[in-house]
């Protein structure tokens, strides 16, 4: 038994996951115990327990089972997403919740898991090679499907996460540099278009140069460039169709202080909270920004402020450090794994976690625009917590089965 444990039990992932969940519970308690939302702590604890069970089940499932279930899961998720679009209730302006038997659920959280598993399962097939155009397109479609449905909710944040996971997965699976550039250039051009015509043209110029440098054949370059231009030109259309609060978020990202009481309020208060924590923080349950409710919805998107303010640099570094360790460990698992499914799956899961951490913590510190995505293990939210713990379970699974082919 001990032998098995040492060989196959992914202690690292297990402990990091528990540590972060514990920190999350502490933070949610601090942010909510003395106001109306005191029940949040209890709910999160229940979800943590459920997630814990889910994590262990996932970790100990036989390797093949998951691979076989992958497409089924994926199909289910697509269907649910469709139903949500039609039927789901609107919370915070997005049709993302789905009430089933009195329990709320956010299918998009599980969509991330399902998509990664489906993509990994597909790419793991012997006859599939990412360098073949058809297989590449299918992989893109696997991502594009849920992405489009989620974007239609509209949930820009989660859609961005999908995109941020796609790139490392393609990269790891062996896509050519050109393909990766071809995907990145439209993004670059779109970004430029957001800022203005001059920037759009500069970005298009850089994009063209990059495409040419990495070219495989001229036709591909032309097509890719054409796509990039099309994306750039349609940016304005998409921006206009974004809800007002998303537009404002993008606009105030650059300078939250210009609207400190409006769209920039959260970030300004968040920075104050974190900054005022200093080296060792103000003490547990003693953070003035937290306790006096200066940060709205602090237990969800801005949960990082709590360890930042109450445990200071020491606490915040600890949290970030645990995340960093987990991400590096995930990459290691992907490297060590002898089977493609586990390897690509590990990268996918790690990419999800890394993206969430980078965007959420970056947002709390004013480095990124306010995109509403949670901090894994810490943010309040049942679906996200359970889905994340299941992903941790997947990592453990991939670790356990790394020697299988």
């Amino acid at each position, binding site marked *: 038994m001990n032998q098995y444990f040492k060989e196959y039990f992914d202690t690292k992932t297990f402990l990091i996951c528990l540590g972060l969940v514990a920190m999350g519970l502490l933070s949610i308690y601090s942010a909510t115990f003395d106001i109306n939302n005191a029940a949040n702590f209890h709910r999160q604890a229940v979800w943590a327990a459920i997630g814990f069970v889910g994590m262990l089940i996932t970790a100990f499932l036989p390797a093949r089972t998951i691979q076989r279930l992958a497409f089924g899961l994926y199909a289910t998720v697509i269907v649910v997403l469709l139903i949500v679009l039609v039927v789901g209730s609107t919370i915070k302006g997005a049709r993302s919740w789905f009430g089933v038997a009195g329990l709320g659920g956010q299918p998009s959280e599980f969509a991330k898991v399902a998509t990664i598993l489906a993509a990994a399962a597909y790419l793991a097939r*012997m006859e599939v*090679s*990412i*360098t073949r155009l058809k297989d590449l397109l299918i992989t893109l479609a696997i991502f594009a499907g849920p992405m489009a449905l989620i974007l239609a909710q509209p949930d820009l944040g989660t859609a961005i996460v999908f995109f941020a996971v796609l790139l*490392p997965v393609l*990269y*790891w*699976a*062996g*896509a*050519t540099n050109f393909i990766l550039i071809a995907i990145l250039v439209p993004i670059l051009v779109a970004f430029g278009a957001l800022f203005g015509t001059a920037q759009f043209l500069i970005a298009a110029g850089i994009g063209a140069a990059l495409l040419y440098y990495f070219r495989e054949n001229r036709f591909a370059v032309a097509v890719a460039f054409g796509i990039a231009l099309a994306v750039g030109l349609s940016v304005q259309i998409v921006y206009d169709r974004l809800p007002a609060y998303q537009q404002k978020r993008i606009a105030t990202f650059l300078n939250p202080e210009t609207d400190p009481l409006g769209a920039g309020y959260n970030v300004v*208060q968040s*920075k*104050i*909270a*974190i*900054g*005022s*924590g*200093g*080296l060792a923080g103000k003490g547990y349950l003693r953070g*003035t*920004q937290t306790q*006096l*409710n*200066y940060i*709205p919805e602090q237990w969800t998107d801005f949960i990082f402020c709590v360890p*930042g*303010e109450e445990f*200071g*640099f020491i606490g*915040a*570094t600890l949290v*970030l450090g645990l*995340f*960093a360790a987990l*991400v*590096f460990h995930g*990459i290691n698992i*992907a*490297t*060590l*794994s*002898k*089977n*493609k499914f586990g*390897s690509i799956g590990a*990268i996918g899961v790690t990419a999800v976690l*890394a993206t969430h*951490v*980078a965007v959420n*913590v*970056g947002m709390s*510190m004013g*480095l990124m625009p306010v995109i509403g995505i949670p901090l894994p293990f810490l943010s309040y939210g049942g679906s996200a917590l359970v889905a994340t713990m299941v992903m941790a379970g997947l990592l453990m699974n991939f670790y356990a089965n790394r020697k299988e*082919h």
Partner: protein
Amino acid sequence: MGAVIDSGEFGSRQRQTVLRLATLVIFSILFLRLYQLQLVSHTEFGKKSEENSVRTVIKDPVRGDIYDRTGRLIVDVGPSFAVTAAPASFDSATARELGELLQMDPVQITERVNKGRQYSRFSPVRIKRDVDFKTLSAVEEHLYLLRGISYEVESKRLYNAPIRASHLLGYCKEITEAQLARYGDTYRQGDLVGSSGLESSYETFLRGERGFEYIAVNSKGQQLGPLEGGQRDIASKEGFDLVLSLDAGLQACAESLMTQYKGALVAMDPNTGGILAMVSKPDFDPSVFSGVTASEDWTRLNTDDGKPLFNRATMSRYPPGSTFKMVVAAAALEEGLIDEHYRITCTGGFRFGRRLFRDLHVHGSVNVVEAIQKSCNVFFYQLVLKVGLDKLNEYGKKFGFGHATGVDIAEETSGLLPSEAYYDRVYGKDKWTLGNVVSLGVGQGEIGVSPLQMARYASSLANGGILLQPHAVDRIYNKRVNRYSVVDVHGVPLGLSPKTIGLIREGMRAAVELPGGTGSLARIPGIESAGKTGTAENPHGKDHAWYIGFAPFDNPKIAVAVLLENSGFGGAKAAPLARALMHRYLFGETLQPERAAIAAADSRH
């Protein structure tokens, strides 16, 4: 090491490294930002978080009281209610509702709130001050409709005693932008600051120090309770009380005696220089400025032709007329130019050059004492020429003319005491003659004195030749340590010989007590007093009446200077007024000026 793969780049070494590097870069950026926020900018954010969560409430200090010399409370402090609004919670519905309750324009209210918002979102802004209790109750009743509205208890002046003493006491007004710029640290917008009289000159003593309360607030602006149990709070400190030389009973008497006149009266203690009474008519009720002054009242007082806000006792200049003769006499006697035996014959006129200077009577042979007693002009016309302008100026200065007395009330005039340099400047060198100087001998022409200067002058003659420092405040009482500080006052000896002083005093006594004296209407039954009448020529209308005097003659207790504008001869109306006042002070009851005597006096002159 890699897995079994077919496509070349899958999980390649290079790509492993790239991913690890990318992770490193991303987390490094996050750590650096954390470092920047928490360790580099820590103090800045710490401060901002404190500003967020702590509301500072300023506790205004209670202003000091003012008492008269007998310990009677004449100026008190009472509560005044101001309706306030917190900018963070204010909205247009509240503006409308409040406008109705306070009878104010909602736009004006909103403007005030917006102005205060620039200073702080949570600090309450005063919307209307000194609201009556009925209005306040109405506001309190409607509080559920009014977001962020509250009230503050401020203090305002209450005037207890049946006196006005408006110019002496002064009043307080809201601090101006200019004053805020200068004293900004200890004052804030809307604070009251003494702006005239004693309220102004003793502002730093009367005001006290404000205190601070720290209250924890949440993001909704709701007060959660005192920060750290109030440990960091600083209590406000009461202002100091002033104890004046003023005698409230005497002041009331003086004000009623002066009711139908325009002019001024200053009564002084000739031993200390303390001001016993000071009246300037027309005056105003100081409680007009207490609380909030209606703009109509302010306009009325400002545009009144009689200039009721103007302190005639300290700020007006009038020619002293015959009251100035003692200065000339003192100069001549002290310089050895004349003595008690020196005589001239007064024929009713004095010819100088092409001019004839008139006297009111033919006095015949007079010496200096008789010249004072009978107020002979001719005597002094020729005496002043003997004395000369330089010496006259010198002695005038000695007696306190031509320069401010330094009294502790806000503004005063230095008056006008001419000199050679002055005439040179006004007329041009060699363009004036001794003809100008001749009128100075009887206190007419280019010479101006204030009633306060005259009271000091009278006091210095009363006390045998000491020039005192006039002052309104006798002691300052520090409530916090229960201690009195006596105002330090020094008198300066004039340096006149007792003989000179004696002769002059004798002349003044004779003016009141002996027949032929011009001040007979100032005679106080039962005691001996002394004084001098004067008539200030007024080119624009009827002459002004002067009287200066002191009583009792031996060991004087009170010296008085009275100026009645456009009232003709000094002996007629000013003298009996002074008599009534001094009688009140010495015996406790007011003698009514006898009208018959006035009528008789009028016919005599």
